[in-house]
């Protein structure tokens, strides 16, 4: 099958997503508004940490995993419930094109969000990172979207549309807070800091903070491996659900 199918499938996935203000506005506005509030309106430092840069990394993670969880997870659950997925499966389209399009959508949203956060942080705030670091952070965030696509896939394959909305909300917001994406983890009690290792978002945030130099000596390979293993686990669980 030609690449054309993958390209058009991605185009229409984006088009239908962009026409949903209820998805677009919160996806873009939440991370940007929170970031502007905590890093720009209230600038400064926490000890050795420079707030605008530190929070660019963590709100970057917060921002990019939202569309992956909602777009991918809730989208899949809804479309499975509506019978759209079945319609794709009876066509000659390779089903991989369906998932490819959802990944592209998540990546495009991630790019837009990172662009907006950077605009706010660099133009209006005092983020001081070089072009190379900025690109590296973008790379980490975009690759980091993929394990959350896998998590969304698993949730979406497990339950129907409305339940998926509830579960994603239940996973997304607490995980974001407990991974230190909204507030740095050191403001939380010790046991919450210790617990953070179980959240994939914390591993991605550590990598993001590492590449912008806010956390020194981050074991990048270890965090990448943990994310890879989590992604593999989610994919296996999703495959089991989708096979039924």
């Amino acid at each position: 099958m030609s690449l054309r199918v993958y390209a058009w499938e991605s185009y229409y996935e984006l088009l239908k997503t962009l026409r949903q203000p209820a998805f677009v506005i919160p996806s873009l506005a939440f991370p940007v508004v929170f970031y502007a509030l905590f890093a720009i309106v209230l600038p400064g430092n926490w000890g050795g940490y420079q707030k605008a840069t530190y929070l660019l990394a963590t709100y970057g993670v917060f921002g990019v995993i939202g569309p992956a969880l909602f777009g991918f997870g809730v989208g899949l659950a809804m479309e499975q419930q509506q019978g759209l997925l079945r319609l794709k499966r009876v066509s000659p389209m390779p089903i991989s094109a369906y998932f490819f399009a959802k990944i592209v959508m998540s990546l495009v949203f991630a790019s837009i969000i990172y662009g907006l956060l950077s605009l706010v942080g660099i133009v209006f705030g005092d983020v001081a990172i070089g072009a190379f670091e900025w690109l590296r952070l973008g790379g980490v965030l975009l690759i980091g979207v993929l394990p959350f696509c896998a998590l969304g896939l698993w949730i979406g394959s497990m339950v129907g549309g409305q339940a998926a909305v509830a579960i994603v909300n239940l996973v997304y917001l607490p995980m974001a807070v407990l991974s230190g994406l909204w507030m740095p983890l050191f403001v939380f009690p010790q046991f919450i800091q210790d617990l953070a290792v179980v959240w994939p978002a914390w591993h991605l945030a550590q990598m993001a903070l590492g590449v912008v130099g806010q956390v020194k000596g981050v074991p990048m390979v270890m965090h990448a491996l943990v994310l890879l293993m989590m992604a593999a686990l989610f994919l296996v669980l999703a495959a089991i659900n989708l096979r039924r």
Partner: protein
Amino acid sequence: MTNRVFAALRAVSKRYGAISALDGMNLEIREGELLSLLGVNGAGKTTALSLITGQLQADAGSVELFGGDPTEPQQRAHLGVMLQEAELPEKLKVRELIHQQSQYFASALGINETLELSGLADLAARRYEQLSGGQKRRVQFALALAGNPRLLLIDEPTTGLDVGARRQFWQVVRELKARGVSIVLTTHYLEEADALADRIVVMGQGRVLADGSPTAIKSRAQGRRVSARTALSLETVQSFAHVSQASASEGRIALRSPRVEDVLRQWLAADPTLAELTVEALSLEDAFLTLTQESVQ
């Protein structure tokens, strides 16, 4: 010349846990025919279609589509499918939906041709969410046509459509048949099968109960419904020749029979007190029920 077989189920069985959906089902769908798969809900029609479209795999027996395995996507290159329930993305426009679907097929129709054929030319710029229920069904039908299929499967096409929309749909189906498209439609309306099909396959309990022309199927299902107040027991009435489906309620016994005169002669002779006799023609639905139930016995 025998027409090519486009799709076939051969001795196919399929279970969902303890429930047997198909039980030794045999069916061949040939080039150029308009076949109607008729059966009550749960007869196995949708399961049969799901096997032919590659969504399910048979537990036993073989399933063939254009000479190959329908679970391989490329085998479905000349297949069009309209599912019973499939909502499309609300925010996309009719033309966009058809364009997207057309990308899946190497031999797709032009977008405008699909729009014309499905009567959607005037609605091409509307978003799916702005359409009425009947118009949405038409878009789903258009997606089934978009790939210029040689075999078109339609699952319960007119469920939820009003009479006018139903006739309109039939018109398009006839037009497609004239173009040489093989069509299979499942329905539980005998009327619909009768109006369109040149072959009817009646399914029940996961098997083929009857397979023939609409005329042949209807003649097998002819009969009348008789009911009367009687002093006889249900068992006695049931023992008369040519009685099917007798039931008693509130002092009356009702039955169906393909040879109602013979039944009445026996009944009147056996019960001089018989009263309030009514004889009415079976509706097509009744006739169809009689057929499925006779075949089970």
